[in-house]
């Protein structure tokens, strides 16, 4: 028996997707928190973008989409870059634009092959600045082994941009037999981080806010495709990879826990946090678990493969400080907790919007 079908009236808003707690309820305008990578970003995607153009591929909401095309399995991803300042210790927006997209593809196990690049320039920006960014972008592409094959340039009126915005998109092949996605995390799996956390965010903050922390903090911005290849060479069944950029390690692990329906338990004293980052966070009232990284990855692997993967990571220049920081557990599904140095536990939540410095 065929049910009569009522076509939705496209002129009417569809409230059925607006589940409690009502998203965006308290903000009729876009606020900075919508771009922070936390709960507010998630709600914007879930309740505004997905209803508008959702489809089975998008539904995974992973860093890159994995597609079948002409018999090949492709990973495809895009990322936009609005960082201030444009140049920072350890890199520039040009390096970020290449590495960000290369890394998003690598988190599906794909080797990035081709990138597109869009420049949105503000009227009045010095051409020497644009030239330096373009040179950095070219150098980063060569270093990562990708080719920038198409691009676009737009100019906006003075005051309508922040100097230079970049967008890149990239494609790469996913090797046969590789199935890396957040849903594959299982209780008993081990959580590994590839190195020291919180470095990029603090490097940016130190120049943006004019705060110095004794020693200069240099961004960890780097392409992770080589490290991923080294890991897959010893263990093709890596379950999950994630680069904990905006929102930091805490946000990425919460996304994985929710997607896979597992709990994640971290051991606080095993978290590799450099002293400068710890000091800066203590000073500013921030938590290193929520600070951005641009050259680190989180890997979730079966326990019996952990040692091999860890050894392969430590043998790679970008994985020398790789460490096991926790495990997936059947308890508290969807939730990340950490065991403190004193033996107590606390919840590590998804941030709401941007992390705010505490007053004192």
């Amino acid at each position: 028996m065929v049910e009569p079908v009522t076509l939705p009236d496209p002129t009417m808003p569809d409230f059925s997707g607006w589940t409690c707690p009502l998203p965006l309820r308290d903000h009729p305008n876009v606020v900075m928190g919508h771009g922070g990578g936390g709960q507010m970003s998630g709600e914007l995607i879930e309740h505004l973008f997905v209803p508008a153009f959702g489809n089975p591929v998008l539904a995974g909401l992973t860093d890159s989409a994995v597609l079948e095309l002409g018999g090949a399995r492709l990973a495809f991803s895009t990322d936009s870059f609005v960082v201030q300042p444009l140049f920072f210790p350890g890199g520039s927006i040009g390096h970020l634009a290449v590495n960000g997209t290369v890394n998003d593809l690598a988190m599906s196990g794909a080797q990035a092959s081709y990138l597109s690049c869009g420049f949105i320039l503000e009227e009045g920006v010095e051409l020497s600045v644009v030239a330096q960014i373009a040179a950095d972008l070219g150098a980063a592409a060569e270093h990562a082994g990708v080719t920038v094959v198409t691009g676009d340039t737009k100019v906006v009126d003075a005051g309508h941009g922040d100097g230079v915005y970049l967008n890149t998109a990239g494609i790469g092949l996913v090797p046969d037999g590789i199935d890396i996605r957040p849903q594959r995390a299982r209780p008993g799996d081990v959580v590994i981080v590839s190195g020291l956390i919180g470095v990029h965010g603090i490097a940016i903050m130190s120049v943006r806010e004019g705060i110095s922390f004794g020693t200069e903090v240099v961004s960890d911005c780097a392409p992770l495709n080589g490290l991923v290849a080294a890991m897959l060479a010893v263990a093709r069944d890596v379950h999950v990879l994630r680069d904990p950029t905006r929102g930091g390690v805490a946000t990425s692990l919460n996304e994985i826990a929710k997607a896979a329906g597992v709990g994640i338990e971290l051991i606080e004293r095993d978290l590799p946090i450099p002293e400068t980052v710890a000091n800066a966070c203590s000073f500013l009232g921030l938590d290193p678990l929520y600070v951005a990284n641009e050259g680190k990855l989180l890997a979730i692997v079966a326990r019996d493969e952990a040692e091999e993967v860890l050894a392969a990571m430590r043998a790679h220049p970008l994985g020398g400080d790789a460490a096991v920081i926790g495990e997936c557990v059947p308890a508290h599904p969807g939730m990340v907790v950490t065991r403190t140095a004193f033996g107590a536990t606390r919840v590590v939540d998804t941030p709401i919007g941007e992390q705010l410095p505490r007053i004192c």
Partner: protein
Amino acid sequence: MKYLDEFSDPELAKRLVDQIHATTTKSWAMMEVCGGQTHTIVRHGIDQLLPDGVEMIHGPGCPVCVTPLEVIDKALEIAAQPDVIFCSFGDMLRVPGSERDLFRIKSQGGDVRVVYSPLDALRVAQQNPDKQVVFFGIGFETTAPPNAMTVYQAKKLGIPNFSLLVSHVRVPPAIEAIMQSPDCRVQGFLAAGHVCSVMGTAEYPELADKYGVPIVVTGFEPLDILAGILRTVTQLERGEHTVENAYQRAVRDEGNPVAKAMLADVFETTDRSWRGIGMIPQSGWRLSERYREYDAEHRFQVADITTQESTVCRSGEVLQGLIKPHECEAFGTLCTPRNPLGATMVSSEGACAAYYLYRRLQTPEVVTSGG
């Protein structure tokens, strides 16, 4: 970091915990005054390590939490005006006023900026002589000296376009108000170490005597807190009630004379409302007559704004230590950090937010947010 890492050592912490267990023979309820201390206790799970009889009541010492709704509404009114640059510490931006918060003002075109020091706001004023620059001066005796210094500098340098929206509060009158509450259960205090590093300890012996409570000046790292608890329990077990300084690396009895002189010059005491608690006589500071021209409340004529607090929110009882955050009906359901009803849910130093962020596993009756 030196003076921090040494005070987080798990082995030493265990020894202190053992000593607390060995010392405790009865049930005791003590209050840590400062929100920073609450944050440390809940983040590290220190209260989970204490003997069953030792209860920590989380005090009203979070500057964000106790700033009255009325002042927030005044801030929002000022920040929404054209030609105003409104500067604030970060965690004030999300505190809900009656209808909106500073984030929304910013998204609607208001110039709202996060600064790390009030002197940064003064620099903004120098760089923007055609704008009115307002700094949101809230907090306890700790944030008051730099704010006083900023107003002093503005006057000295002749920067007419700077002003301060002041809602400063003082700890000793709050301790007095808590002790006078008929429902008061507090038997001892961990005093806020950084407040004492400014003001010294001279205000406390009278309170300790009058109410028969030990007052132990306590720092903010895990070992500091445990040492403060141990000294308080020891006094309680012995039936003593003196003022002790367990934070000698930062606090001298006389405090910081330079900061105190600056406070005395720029501010004068005034009655002040505390969010969730109500008016406490002489518990606040406002700009003194000499500096009145730098008072944003007068400059922008918002003095007559008055607002009521949410009736569902029980932050007042939380701030007075009468209930624990998860005992409020709205906790975790109507009221979350995403949609806070009261300021105790906003700042990570607020008791409700600390419980929500770190404690949901231990409060299984709480329905976690599906959003």
